[in-house]
């Protein structure tokens, strides 16, 4: 199957699989788009994407949302059957990830070159921007890929960054951006600002659902997002080299060319964030857009985010656990699976075999020392290898019975956390917690775990027999 190279192609995949709901009635930008985005995530884990085809105040605008917002949609983005369960999607993601790096395909022309705006850019005219949640300080682009290069290492394709950062459109060609210190782009910006130079960037919208999953994925600083995309989609990522030297996804709907202004900060926010809380208003960098490319009849693809679960939680789920798994497994091959689906990994559940007493909690500390752990992994729950970390019923059983708070809660004081964590004190600092819910092994001899229950002999055969009988009784 040919890889999807843009959101437009993916809409066809969704439609073929019954995962696209077209909304023909005219809608208001506020509050309809945000309200529908919230509502669709409340209706379950298998919901379709939404396509709004008539927007009040625009002639031909089209908004699609909830592209990432369900497990069937995530499976289809991966090119898997839409009923693939979460665990299967995780291990397939890991399998492909471990083939990194892939090759890219460089092309000269792209569909977004059809229309070019070089003067009097007005983002409001070409993007049907709107307020997502009532307390948002403005109209945001909340799903995009921002491409930057390190001015101190410009030619190095591996440190070219493709990241997903929130963007507040403040004027016709003026955008507020949030490059928090944990983000790779903050390193590029710091180098540019030390030089007193603007940082050239490209903002692409609608690049492809898998590109956006990679852009929001905590891979290593010197790993190329495009080469990661290639292995995840099973064929080379198509990219276009701009005259500036930056590489831009071929499949985008819009490409905005601009600069983060050197040493400028101004009011930004608040924005309702993936933590389920508003971010507060802060003083953050500013982008000026100089040029816009877009496809004819472009599709605008925002996402809804609010109190989990919403679309963003599906997008930043498997892509968060997989790199943690691969990075930690290098040191500790005993690790079996990592579930970092909760609020982009503020909570992480790790199942592992144990080499000796105290092993599991050491693995928990390793999670906190991954790059992503710098800003996340506030609570790490360690469970036995026999527990499926994606099955919360099993995890809760482990917490219920394997934990003695006398010795199994390991608190690490004053650790770093992303500034958006509302529990932090001060902003950016928090204690962290490892909960060791594994069964103690020697020389750790705590507890009375000598007689665990197992299944009676013949359970597997009965399971097979009963399943067959149930299937026959239904048909």
């Amino acid at each position, binding site marked *: 199957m040919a890889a999807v190279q843009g959101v437009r192609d993916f809409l066809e995949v969704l439609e073929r699989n019954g995962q696209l709901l077209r909304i023909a009635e005219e809608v208001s930008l506020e509050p309809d788009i945000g309200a529908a985005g919230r509502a669709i995530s409340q209706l379950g884990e298998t919901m379709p994407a939404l396509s709004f085809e008539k927007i009040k105040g625009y002639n031909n605008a089209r908004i699609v949302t909830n592209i990432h917002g369900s497990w069937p949609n995530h499976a289809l983005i991966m090119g898997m059957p839409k009923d693939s369960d979460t665990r299967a999607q995780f291990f397939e993601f890991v399998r492909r990830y471990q083939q990194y790096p892939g090759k890219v395909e460089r092309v000269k022309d792209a569909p977004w070159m059809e229309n070019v705006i070089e003067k009097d850019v007005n983002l409001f005219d070409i993007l049907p921007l709107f307020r997502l949640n009532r307390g948002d300080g403005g109209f945001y682009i909340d799903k995009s890929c921002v491409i930057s290069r390190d001015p101190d290492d410009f030619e190095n394709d591996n440190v070219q960054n493709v990241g997903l950062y929130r963007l507040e459109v403040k004027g016709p060609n003026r955008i507020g951006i949030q490059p928090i210190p944990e983000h790779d782009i903050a390193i590029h910006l710091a180098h540019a600002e030390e030089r007193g130079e603007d940082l050239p960037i490209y903002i692409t919208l609608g690049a492809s659902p898998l590109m956006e999953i990679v852009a929001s994925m905590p891979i290593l600083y010197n790993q190329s997002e495009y080469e990661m995309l290639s292995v995840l989609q099973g064929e080379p990522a198509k990219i276009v080299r701009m005259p500036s030297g930056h590489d831009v996804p071929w499949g985008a709907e819009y490409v905005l060319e601009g600069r983060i202004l050197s040493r400028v900060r101004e009011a930004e926010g608040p924005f309702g964030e993936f933590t389920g809380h508003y971010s507060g208003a802060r*003083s953050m960098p500013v982008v000026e857009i100089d040029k816009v490319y877009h496809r004819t009849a472009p599709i605008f693809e925002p996402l809804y985010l609010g109190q989990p679960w919403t679309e963003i939680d599906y997008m930043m789920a498997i892509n968060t656990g997989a790199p943690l798994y691969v990075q930690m497994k290098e040191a500790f091959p005993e690790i079996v699976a990592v579930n970092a689906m909760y609020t982009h990994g503020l909570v992480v559940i790790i199942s592992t075999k144990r080499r000796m007493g105290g092993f599991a909690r050491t693995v928990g500390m390793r999670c906190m020392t991954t790059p992503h752990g710098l800003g996340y992994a506030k609570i790490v729950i360690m469970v036995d290898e026999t527990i499926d970390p994606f099955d919360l019923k099993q995890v809760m059983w482990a917490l219920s019975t394997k934990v003695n708070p006398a010795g199994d809660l390991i608190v690490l004081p004053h650790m770093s956390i992303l500034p958006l964590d509302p529990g932090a004190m001060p902003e950016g600092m928090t204690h962290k917690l490892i909960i060791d819910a594994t069964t103690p092994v020697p020389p750790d001899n705590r507890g009375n775990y000598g007689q665990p229950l197992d299944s009676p002999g013949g359970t597997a055969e009965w399971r097979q027999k009963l399943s067959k009988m149930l299937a026959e009784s239904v048909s």
Partner: protein
Amino acid sequence: MNAQTKTTTIHPVCPRCRSAETDILTRSPVKDVWIVHGCKVCFYAWRNTEPEENINPDKYPEAFRLDPAEVNNFIVVPTIPPLRKSETG
């Protein structure tokens, strides 16, 4: 201001910080459907067709209101690094 706060002028006060320094950011591509206003002080933006809580200063939620004086004291993220010293000195 009270319940009579005027919101229908061409340049209304900012619903969030009540600054009078506001501007029209854009008008709807289809004529006369809506206008987007922006505040030059706190950068709040609003469309004149939004629910009252987003466009009327008196109905704007207390939790999100801002004093214009606060804007200069926001936390700076990320911090601005020192300029490098010129290699030639």
